[in-house]
């Protein structure tokens, strides 16, 4: 192997030997990474390229052939009221669910971390919604939110408040769905935060106390929050993605209604692609959806990455 790493030699023979070995290694490398390359191409790159391509066509499932229509689909998106509504709804939903589920999870995680005895019980309890099937749990929520027989409104009536028609009124439907979204994602974020909290060296808290951080808030500012930086970045990323992808609850509980008040991006794409079979148009929407996610992630990492990794 010595001649592989040696400097170029004036003698021809070792040079030839080196290229031969290098070639051999290169072959082996390609061979070994081939399965991964093929899988990556077939399952990730190809579908993305296909979606982008279809977005420039008027392809409709069931009709033979299609034409390239350039940016016509995108032009239509701009004037599509349903799409604009669903884009706005999705952003509002994400803007509610992401911060609340993150800060609620952080607060709960710190409470659970401080508690010695019930830790694993609480962890399991809060994680249950993550493990359960949302479609199945949606029926439970439908019952809970029912305006006349639902226990939530029954409880509100006890204290003299007339509860809203949670899922039935266009003014409240998105917030009701957001409550379900928070309920579902808090557990997951909480487990991530718990892991992050456990990894903080106890000595730092001791040092903070000796240094004069007398209140819990001071110690949170000085130790917990900065030390959780990497976890928070990850949790934020995951939460944004999962809240932008809200679909099951909308599909099972509201079908985008009433009056498109709970129309969200993924549901609109589903409607266009699988109900109206306008695959080209749905693909264009998907591209916009992907672009939004990518931009969000890039912006977020640009802002946060430098601040949370300290070495």
């Amino acid at each position, binding site marked *: 192997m010595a001649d592989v790493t040696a400097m170029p030699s004036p003698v021809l023979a070792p040079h030839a030997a080196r290229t031969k070995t290098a070639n051999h290694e290169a072959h082996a490398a390609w061979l070994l990474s081939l399965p991964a390359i093929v899988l990556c191409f077939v399952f990730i790159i190809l579908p993305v390229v296909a979606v982008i391509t279809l977005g420039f066509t008027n392809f409709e499932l069931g009709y033979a052939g299609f034409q390239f229509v350039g940016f016509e689909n995108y032009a239509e998106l701009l004037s599509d009221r349903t799409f604009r509504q669903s884009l706005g709804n999705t952003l509002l939903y994400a803007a509610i669910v992401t911060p609340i589920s993150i800060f609620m999870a952080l607060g709960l995680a710190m409470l659970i971390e401080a508690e010695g005895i019930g830790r694993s019980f609480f962890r399991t309890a809060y994680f249950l919604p993550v493990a359960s099937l949302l479609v199945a749990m949606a029926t439970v929520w439908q019952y809970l939110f029912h305006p006349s027989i639902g226990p939530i409104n029954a409880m509100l009536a006890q204290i003299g408040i007339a509860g809203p028609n949670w899922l039935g009124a266009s003014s409240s439907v998105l917030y009701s769905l957001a409550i379900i979204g928070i309920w579902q994602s808090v557990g997951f974020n909480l487990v991530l935060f718990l892991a992050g909290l456990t990894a903080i*060296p106890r*000595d*730092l808290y*001791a*040092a*903070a*106390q*000796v*240094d*004069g*951080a*007398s*209140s819990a808030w*001071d110690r949170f500012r*000085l*130790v917990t929050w*900065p*030390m959780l*930086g990497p976890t928070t970045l990850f949790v934020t990323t995951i939460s944004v993605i999962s809240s932008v992808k809200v679909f099951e609850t909308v599909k099972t509980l509201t079908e985008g209604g009433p009056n498109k008040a709970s129309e969200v991006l993924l549901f609109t794409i589903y409607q266009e692609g699988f109900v109206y079979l306008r695959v080209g148009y749905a693909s264009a929407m998907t591209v916009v959806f992907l672009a939004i996610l990518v931009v969000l992630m890039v912006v977020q990492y640009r802002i946060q990455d430098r601040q949370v990794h*300290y*070495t």
Partner: protein
Amino acid sequence: MSVLSLRGIEKSFNGNSILKGVSLDAAPGEFIALVGPSGCGKSTLLRILAGLETADSGTITMGDQDLTRLQAAARNVAMVFQSYALYPHLTAAQNIAVPLVMRRLSRAQRLPLVGPLMPGQRQIIADIKRDVRDMAASLKIDHLLDRKPGQMSGGQRQRVALGRAMVRRPAVFLMDEPLSNLDANLRVHARGEIVDLHRRAGVPTVYVTHDQAEALSMADRVAVMIGGSLLQIAPPSVIYDDPRHVEVAKFIGQPRINLLASQVEEDGTVAFGQARVRLADRGLAAGRSVTLGLRPEFVSIDRDGENGLPARVERIEFLGSEIIVYSRMEMSGDTMIAKLTPAQGAGLFAGMTVRVGASAKHLFVFAADGERLSAAPLVKTEAREVAYG
């Protein structure tokens, strides 16, 4: 006069008694090393002193102030941790500034956006920056001020940790094995630096370590802690030459002291070979078992002759300026460690039969419960009288 005083500190965790009534006084400017094997409770005691744990009973006073129930932030103590516990997201300068920021700025003045608008905040921050720079200059870490802990070496981090502890001129300095994460060379160097800094600052220091050499070389007084009790508190030379307890003798000194099981004889003496000591307490019944202690440097090894007891050399370690000889006593089977000069050890080899001896004035006698018994060496004639009389 003591500036810091601990009285009857007790602490137990889940029914395990960790500290069993510890009392300790520190004089102004004193450097006390708290030394003991791991798990003896020395770190717990330090954390109680810092206010990070509360004692089950006992009191802590500093000057005329009772600290017992005061939380850590309210005590004027600083602590250096074994892991240094630097805040990884802050630069060295910010790390050193933390204790000053926490104490000099009000909560409102510390707020991120509103703080700078508070009256006086700017002046206080300028003062803090100046103090940090002065501290860094005296520790020779000025060039590190903009670095984060992740970009510093172990020795540099240790200095920053020292700086953070010293910057606010605490009334008491606590150090929890601050050198144990450094490599051997740096450790010896850092010992000298810490002693130097202590001398300049003149602040009473409690220094926890499991390394007896560190304790002996740095401290004004060494407190030996075994199993949750302070067995002896004394200057290093006294701890070494006059241990009050067998555990102290065992823990202090490298190589370890030789301990041999023995018995009190009819006439109230205890003997090792020809070396014989008379116990001061004549009430001890003959036949009572005691432990004889003999430091390796006082063990003599003769190639022949009649002095001493027969033994076989098992192993010889050459350490340059000295030679450590391990030999097995033929009668008792005990291993005897001797520290000799190279000249004394010349010609010894493993497997050789020798005679191991000691002089009576270097024998320690410990009772079965570990307490040291006072004993006086018998002079030769007296010894003979006793032996034949």
